[in-house]
């Protein structure tokens, strides 16, 4: 088993190299001269040149790349020009916010989409099936930022059930002690129920937005996969052997059907990490997505670079996890490799 993991890690290395190179190239192509911006409106050409030199922008591209990689190796992602703080610290402090949001959205989505997909497949042609198809097609068609705004309008403005979309906590609550950085989890664990309620109520709408966004691909894949498996030869054998419906559907059909769904989760994660950025903007969520967007609009390249790199690495790690999970479920992958 560990050999398989080891092998997968090795194949990941070229991908990481590719990601590092691409991020470097991307941000060196940004329009706008950061030196000019940093020097300020009253700068002289001399001071701009000095600043450019101190930022290392006067060196050749390959030299800059070498500096960049060695900085990375030391965990240095540069400093943000607008705030002056190291990018690494900003990202690590903001990462839990984004992670909490994305994970909640995903878990909620799986909890709804998978049973829906299974039901739709088992009761093919029924009203559940048709509802599932409509819901998933609609879910895929809604722009995620629009869903967020709609939810805010309905649940905050019209119904007043949800709090204002101003971030993770409202003005009156204080952050819980840092255990994982997930406010909901931390406040629950440390017994701080006020904060728990506050952070949960702030989390609901954005998490729901992400959930609606990712419902569609998961439900569709589950349904399609279940349908394919239910008409397969080995399910026919199971039925012909008289196994009861529960065993046939859960033990025989579901486990086999989940394999393509697990693979789809990788793609869903990619979408979610992207949608994260949009949702953070709508709900003023202080995560790394909004950090990057602000920096982007100011041509501040270090945060953008750090952000893209972090997201890519996260994504690579997640895909690795998914491969491993797949290997656990499917013995054919384990034993033949």
């Amino acid at each position, binding site marked *: 088993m560990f050999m398989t993991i080891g092998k997968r890690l090795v194949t990941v290395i070229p991908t990481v190299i590719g990601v590092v190179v691409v991020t470097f190239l991307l941000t060196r192509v940004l329009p706008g001269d950061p030196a000019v911006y940093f020097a300020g409106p009253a700068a002289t050409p001399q001071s701009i040149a000095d600043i450019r030199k101190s930022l290392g922008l006067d060196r050749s591209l390959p030299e800059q790349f070498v500096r960049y990689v060695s900085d990375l190796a030391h965990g240095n992602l540069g400093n943000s020009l607008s705030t002056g703080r190291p990018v690494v610290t900003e990202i690590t402090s903001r990462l839990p916010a984004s992670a909490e949001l994305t994970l909640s959205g995903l878990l909620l989505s799986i909890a709804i989409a998978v049973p829906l997909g299974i039901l739709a497949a088992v009761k093919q042609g029924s009203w559940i099936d048709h509802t599932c198809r409509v819901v998933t097609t609609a879910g895929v068609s809604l722009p995620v930022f629009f869903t967020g705004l709609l939810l805010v309008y309905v649940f905050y403005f019209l119904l007043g059930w949800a709090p204002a979309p101003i971030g993770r906590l409202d003005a009156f609550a204080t952050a819980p002690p840092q255990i994982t950085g997930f406010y909901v989890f931390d406040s629950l664990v440390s017994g701080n129920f006020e904060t728990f309620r506050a952070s949960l109520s702030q989390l609901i709408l954005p998490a729901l937005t992400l959930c609606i966004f990712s419902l569609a691909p998961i439900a569709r894949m589950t349904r399609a996969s279940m349908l394919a498996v239910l008409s397969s030869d080995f399910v026919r054998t*199971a039925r012909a052997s*008289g196994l009861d419906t529960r065993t046939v559907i859960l033990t025989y059909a579901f486990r086999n059907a989940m394999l393509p769904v697990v693979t789809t989760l990788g793609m869903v994660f990619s979408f979610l990490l992207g949608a994260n950025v949009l949702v953070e903007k709508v709900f003023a969520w202080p995560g790394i997505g909004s950090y990057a967007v602000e920096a982007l609009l100011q041509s501040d390249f270090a945060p953008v670079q750090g952000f893209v790199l972090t997201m890519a690495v996260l994504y690579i790690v997640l895909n690795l996890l998914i491969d491993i999970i797949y290997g656990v479920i499917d013995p054919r992958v384990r034993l033949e490799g």
Partner: protein
Amino acid sequence: MAKKLHKPLAPALPDASGARPLLDIKDLTVEFVTRRGIVRAVEHVDITVAKGETLGIVGESGSGKSVTSYAMMRILDRAGRIAGGSVMFSGLDLRDAPEDDMRDLRGREMSMIFQNPRAALNPIRKIGRQIEDVLLQHAQVDSEAVSERAIDMLEQVRIARPRERYHAYPFELSGGMCQRVVIALALACRPQLLIADEPTTGLDVTTQKAVMDLVVDLTRERGMSTILITHDLGLAATYCDRVTVMEKGHVVENAKSDVIFKKPSHAYTRKLMRATPRPGVSLRDLLPADAPKPENAVTKIRSRKSNGTQGPLLVVEKLVKEFPRNSSSAPWTKLFGPKPPPEEETFRAVDGISFSIARGESVGLVGESGCGKSTTSTMVMRLIDRTSGLIMFDGDDIGEIPARNFAKLPLRKRIQMVFQDPTDSLNPRFTAGRAIADPIRQLGGIAANKVRERCEELAEQVGLPIDLLDRFPHQLSGGQKARVGIARAIALKPDLIILDEPTAALDVSVQAVVLNLLQDLKDSLGMSYLFVSHDLNVVRLLCDRVIVMRAGQIVEEGPTERVMGRPKADYTRDLLAAIPHPPL
């Protein structure tokens, strides 16, 4: 959650005239809802099986034989339903029984085994556990003893090292072993009736015999009744007490095995019997007695202009093909299967064989799966490159021309192929006419406006109605598609045609016609054939000489009559002995 142990059904009385049969299907009609409306797959069918009897249901594709058994077990798919008639099993009405009762019966009183055994098993569940599921479902044994019972079943189906194999997954087992596991599943609860739906299709002839012998032994031992559904008359004759013949959803004849094979009364049965390749008959005898004489009954062999030499057309010498083997480093694979020697980084599919084909000669290349016959034929075709050895065609060394360059050479015209699967070998987006015209357009050197004429000429030669030339493959029957493939192969007037199991996917009556067509074409066009097949009976009919291969090597070769009648090698003897003979 202890399930109460179910009492088995009261067994039917031992077979005596007038005794109640175990299974009594009367006037069964099954309908399917399709895009084109309601289709009746089975109409007014009567089938009876007595206790301890083995019944064969024989028919070609579309006869409804499988549908009948699916209907009986009530596992038809959503679009199908029983529209009429009754199904009585040991006195129980199966047609109207509630689904819960049916589930009880399935696996416990009546069970089924299917073709394609590896696909019939859950690929991610250990086989031992799968057997346990059935045992536990029908509460045959409690949960402590169930593993032992499962291992016991594996032993009964003659799987070696059952305790180890209990933990195996289906992909680690061979096709024959998978089928044994499926049989174990079916017999675990000692049902009264076993339905075997084409259980040996796709298996090698020797494996086929082993599996059928096993089924028969186990069922006779337990006094079970069996229904064997098959298209293979030989199989039915060897293993069944009685035979029911079906055609297009109807039963046409039903009699004891020896009666039906010696004195078939219905015309369709007679046609099927005639069409089955067997020793002692010629190709012509396969066709119905009243069939019109084929138009191309030209027996004169047109002599071919040769390269100046009159030597053999094809000479193969010490031909070798090696494939790189994926090194399997997983420790689990050491437990199962033969351990490959550590120095074997490559796999020798063809291990230094030599043979020749004369002009106008038809040579058969036989062997079981994995023997290297397909690899050999693909190399001769110049679709893949050899590792070493000589391939001489009409004096030219074609072996050294790389496969990817061969397509554009004039030599390409002289060696052509008829493929096994007519569906796979026709481009779904090309009409039949376009498929036949393709080689003519690429290599034929005929003026563009004459191409259609040539296609029509070819269609006539192979007996394909001209108006079918504008149809797409999915609009043609199996036999029609086979004809298109043959027309395409002879379009360039090749000297050598390689036929790779060309009739394996066809019904036996269609096969008879196609084999005759192939023989007539060979005679009238003066071609040589290399006929690759696993079916010795067919090879006997069509080939002058036969070569037997095993594990990449030639085991025996010689004139067909001699090899089949007085085989020298043990392997050949085993192969011949494993073929089920229809007693005619």
